[in-house]
């Protein structure tokens, strides 16, 4: 057949599994079977179980490895959590549109993450830090349920050292170790110290968080076309054919998975369901 078969995954092996939280793990592949840009996603197969879409969490510029940070929620992710280093996986992609990082030159970048939504944002953050001079300033606002549920605990101290990066974290419910703010992520969005005329916001997290953060960002002054939202949808093919991920006129897999608020704010369907 002349046309490449888009349904066939490439084989790859699991190198390491890092426990981030009780329900979230980072799966490190033993090589980089496919190249991607921050924001694009892959379809990962657990052989014999099935396939699901994930956005890598590692630096897209890293030539040697690909990492995926995944929460155990369904059939495929539960099977993934049973795997051990050396086990065989399938991967295809990359799919979807990357974050338009080049168009953000000279701007302030305001990143908001919730829970495992930090995974694609880590990939974005690492890509941004590789060219940090291009941006005026980078902000990261991150919320998790409890201190135990914070992903990348081992990496935050390192990121906090970066001068141009301003980080604030919150947890819904604190414990004796927690010194920071408590409350859902919008509590740390009361002050947004950016010049809205020269900024973009990037949000990834559970749908309910996405909804309230979007409302807050709009209220604060971000223009709808400057708010980039990761849309979680059921996806099967990943290549704009099977129709599962449809959101209004968009195929989230092909036109997304990141869509701007401008694209979806007037849809008949609730984009946050």
């Amino acid at each position: 057949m002349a046309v490449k078969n888009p349904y066939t995954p490439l084989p790859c092996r699991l190198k390491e599994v890092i426990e981030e939280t009780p329900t979230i793990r980072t799966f490190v592949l033993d090589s980089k079977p496919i190249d991607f840009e921050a924001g694009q996603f892959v379809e990962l197969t657990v052989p014999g179980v099935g396939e699901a879409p994930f956005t890598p969490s590692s630096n897209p510029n890293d030539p040697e490895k690909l990492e995926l940070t995944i929460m155990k929620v369904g059939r495929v992710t539960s099977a993934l959590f049973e795997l051990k280093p050396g086990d065989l996986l399938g991967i295809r992609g990359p799919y979807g549109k990357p974050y338009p990082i080049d168009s953000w030159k000279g701007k302030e970048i305001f990143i908001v993450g919730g829970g495992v939504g930090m995974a694609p944002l880590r990939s974005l953050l690492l890509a941004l830090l590789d060219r940090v001079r291009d941006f005026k300033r980078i902000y990261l606002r991150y919320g998790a349920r409890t201190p135990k549920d914070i992903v990348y605990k081992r990496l935050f101290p390192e990121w906090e050292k970066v001068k141009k990066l301003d980080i604030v974290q919150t947890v819904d419910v604190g414990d004796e170790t927690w010194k920071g703010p408590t409350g859902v992520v919008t509590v740390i969005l009361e002050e947004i110290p950016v010049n809205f005329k020269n900024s973009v916001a990037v949000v990834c997290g559970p749908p309910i968080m996405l909804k309230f953060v979007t409302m807050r960002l709009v209220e604060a002054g971000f223009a709808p076309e400057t708010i980039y939202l990761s849309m979680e949808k059921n996806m099967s093919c990943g290549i704009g054919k099977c129709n599962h991920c449809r959101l209004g006129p968009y195929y989230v897999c092909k036109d997304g998975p990141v869509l701007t608020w401008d694209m979806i704010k007037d849809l008949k369907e609730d984009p946050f369901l």
Partner: protein
Amino acid sequence: MRFLSRSQLEQLIRRLAETKTVYLPYRTGERINYHRYDGNVDHDALAGIRPTSSLKNFLFPPSEFVASFPKEVRKSIPEQIVIGPKQCDIYGVWVYDRIFGQGEFQDPFYLERKKQLFLISVDCPTPAESCFCNLVDLTPWVEAGSDLNLTPLDDGYLIDPVSKRGKEFLESKGLGSEPTEGQLKAREESRKRAMARLEEINRGKRLREQLPDDDEFWMEKLDGCVECFSCLFACPTCYCFLLYDVKAKKGFDRIRVWDACYYAAYARVGGGMNPRPDFLSRFKNRFHCKFEYFKQYHDRFACSGCGRCLKGCSANIDIREIVWQ
């Protein structure tokens, strides 16, 4: 263009069937269906309305093995000839070409099936009550999209080349005779009659400027639906599918099966969230998909007016009562 008598067409089909698999419509009771050529040609069925199943089954079968892992799938798709599709089904292929045959990623199985499929379309001289191709700006005859086209006349058929390979086929065979003035006129009249019949069937139907928003309208329209989804599976333009994997000796096989947007789990994500949790929202989505979203990209509806969705509906839900008024 050539004229073929009935026996000349029969002879042509017999010759084609010697080397290729030929499907054509046969009537059983009220229904017309494609079957493999059995030595007879059902002229009545050829001139009847579209068969119960569409070309979807030839190009995008209900289930297709599309990948195996870790070894790449190898399969050969046989050459087939289908005689009998009407414009409504040829239009379905046009829709599928847009989905499976275009864009950054193309479906090699669809493309290969299409390459191996030789289509001989037929005019639709006697549209039925369920037909409404005129409402979606189609004609009950084919001018593009097939390889050859037949126009049934009282004493035989006019045969026209439609595609390049159809033209080559016709030229190489030296079939039939030069059509007479009378035969050309008979075709013109037959087509005019078919169009007039469609206009009569769908008289007074006007396309709504916009699909209504209020739930009451939709609740009334979906009343009686038993969620059998035959409207979606029989539709020549519905293209939703699902990939699923089955364990094989080594690794797994991946199967592409038809899916339907009416299923409750269709859009549900891993964590359990569902953007269309109730049937009302799924019912509406089908119409938005066909009459708004597809049109935004391709400037036409993902509906060919074939009427299968209403013929197969046990609740008599008529798409014409929803999209038109």
